[in-house]
């Protein structure tokens, strides 16, 4: 039987099947976000207050980058990203949210690469690829990160895919030669 807890505002179901549980968790998540919504006339438009906060943090990050304060810049931008994940309601326009995240991630990737944090950069680059950003600069950076991580087979696979989408890219061609050479060395 379905029960409703008036305090937490959550629904629960005894002996729920897998599909029912999924449904319930979706409803509960929306409910929790609704409860936290202060504006009674909310719309899918991204909340202005959140946007301002995120933008401010991001701009701080950019400033610090200009000043070559890379670790601090990384922190600021990461915080901005965290905000964009936490402070946005599930019903806010996804397209806007995604663009926001992707834009910030691109900056974070470069900051990570500059500081030699290759595994972190790789994660962000994979996120960008998974969410539809398949431009050459993503492949260039990912190949570079993989080479630095000594994953030469994976690097070769990446730059070959990059070249398939942009066959005349000079940088990718150079990276392909490098990853092939390093792979041959790796194999004695």
């Amino acid at each position, binding site marked *: 039987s379905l029960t409703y807890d008036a305090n937490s505002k959550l629904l629960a179901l005894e002996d729920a099947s897998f599909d029912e549980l999924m449904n319930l968790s979706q409803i509960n998540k929306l409910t929790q976000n609704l409860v936290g919504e202060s504006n009674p006339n909310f719309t899918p438009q991204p909340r202005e207050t959140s946007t301002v906060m995120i933008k401010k943090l991001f701009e701080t990050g950019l400033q610090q980058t200009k000043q070559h304060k890379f670790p601090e810049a990384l922190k600021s931008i990461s915080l901005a990203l965290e905000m964009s994940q936490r402070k946005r309601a599930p019903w806010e326009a996804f397209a806007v949210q995604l663009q926001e995240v992707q834009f910030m991630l691109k900056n974070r990737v470069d900051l990570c690469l500059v500081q030699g944090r290759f595994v972190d950069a790789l994660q962000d680059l994979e996120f960008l690829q998974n969410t539809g950003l398949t431009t050459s600069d993503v492949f260039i950076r990912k190949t570079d990160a993989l080479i630095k991580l000594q994953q030469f087979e994976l690097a070769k*696979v990446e730059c070959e*895919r990059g070249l*398939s*989408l942009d066959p005349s890219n000079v940088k990718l061609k150079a990276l392909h030669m490098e990853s092939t050479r390093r792979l041959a060395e790796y194999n004695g």
Partner: protein
Amino acid sequence: QSYDYDEKAETWPFFAMAVLVVVLLPLTLMQIYELFNSQKEEKFGEQTSTLNELNQVLVPQSIKKFRAKYKVKKSGVWSKKTLIVCLGWCLVAVIWKTIDSNEAVREAASTIFDPYLLLDISTSATEKEIRSAYRKLSIKFHPDKVAKNLSEQQRAVLEEQYVLITKAYKALTDEVTRENYLQYGHPDGPQATSHGIALPRFLVESSASPFVVVGYIALLGLILPIFVSRWWSRTQSVTKKGIHVKTASYFADRLFNFKPSQVVTSDLILDWLSNAEEYKIMYPHLGPKVFRNLLNDHLQRASNGEDLNEIKLRVVAKTHSLLFGLLDVSTNFRNTEISLAAIDTFKSIVQATPVSPESQIFQLPNVDQKRFSEGSVDDVRTLGKLFTYDEKKIGQILGISDESRLQETLKVASFIPRLKLLKAEFKVPGETVVTPESIPHIALKVLVVSPKHKAFPPSKFPQVFFEEEQDFEAQKDPFASALEQPPVPQTFAPLFPVERTGGWCALVMLQKDGKVIQTPLVVDRLSFSNLDNDFDKREIKDVEASFKPENWVVGTIKIPFSQPAPPQNGDYFFRVVLKSTEYFGSDLDFTLPMMVRD
């Protein structure tokens, strides 16, 4: 109301013999065929006989016991089936004798009208022969021409004979009579026919009849449905790829609900395998966690107690079909990550080595993993890199101090095949380019080399080595040339429960979206003879001088392409992956453009 019964055993023996022969003839033919075929069976190539030896020597006792226990007994000449077939034919002979010695049957046969017999001619006699035979006999048997001093009886017999001869002649020549003969078997038209039950009376009407009824009920109501339902459920419960339908639907469910946020590792694949229906059927009292742990134990080469060991080995042996089943499902869902991970998991199970950067080294026998991890001045992770050092140094790196064991390891390492790509293209049979909407296939020229061989550029091979027959036969079936190669030798896998052979799985992905576009092709025909070549990278100083292309056998791999070429001209990029199901370090991964031109 009243039936004629087969009291004189005229009919039922024929029926019984017919049934027996219908069953025995195909069975006998099958047995003879199997007998001859088993002697011609293609043996594992003698190419790596040294490795076969080691394959036997290095098998641990527990696995030897397991293999002996589950060995498929090759049925030789004297098997149960042969015995049944022989008995069957004996029975046929007995029935034949019964029919032969049966007076009633002979009598019935004698009333059969046979014009050829009456006229004393062969069945293939011409009209002329028939006429001349008739003339001769009619003169002999004509009532007027017959001898005068015969009794009434004798005369009557001769007259009857004369009538029959005339009828025989008419049956073969006269239209109406011939019609009658052909239709009813007698020139006078339909004869008296009797209907009855082809069983002796005692079975039907007297005390034995209830048994007959019960027999029929048992046959039709019990035995037949049991056999049919068993066969039906067995067919229904297994998919085309040989896995249980429940397992297949479990895999399909996992893939359908696959989220990109899920990380794909060998562990995930093993988790999925542990939930296979086959395991539940084999060991209903054990759960997926147990199977998962057993698979883990196998990868860690941990030994369990005797009972658990047998369960573990059976579980491991089953992974072969399960993984191929999973691969089939994942390629149908176009999931690249899962497909590649499944094949890597396959390798790790065959070699009893977890997937790690050092897998190529740890798959070798006698390696001291601790000493390897602690030592290693240079980063040695691949077999190719290992062979850049001299034997003594390799022994130090691998932590093997015993000379004979080191030699064993080196033998195995040098026979692990590497694929070297010489040429790759999309080919349309009979055309020089790939035209829009044509049906291309992927034609590869590869070289199977040893990790200790020195590398040389593919350009060292003159073009003529890559050329193939372009005759009509080749165009009709472009894949025939690949199938003429010898089957791959037995895999070196002393820790796998069953002796096995295996090659590579060819996967094709579309570079645009990175997804698999067709089900995998199993490549299990390639010549491994190059592995014996003496071309050690530590000894060859001048590749130009030392390399002789005629010493090397070029392998062919043809991968069918599941879709026609795109309708527009342009360059389309595909990623071809040849992943070995047996060894680490044997894979090939490259991009192949399809250039569609008019």
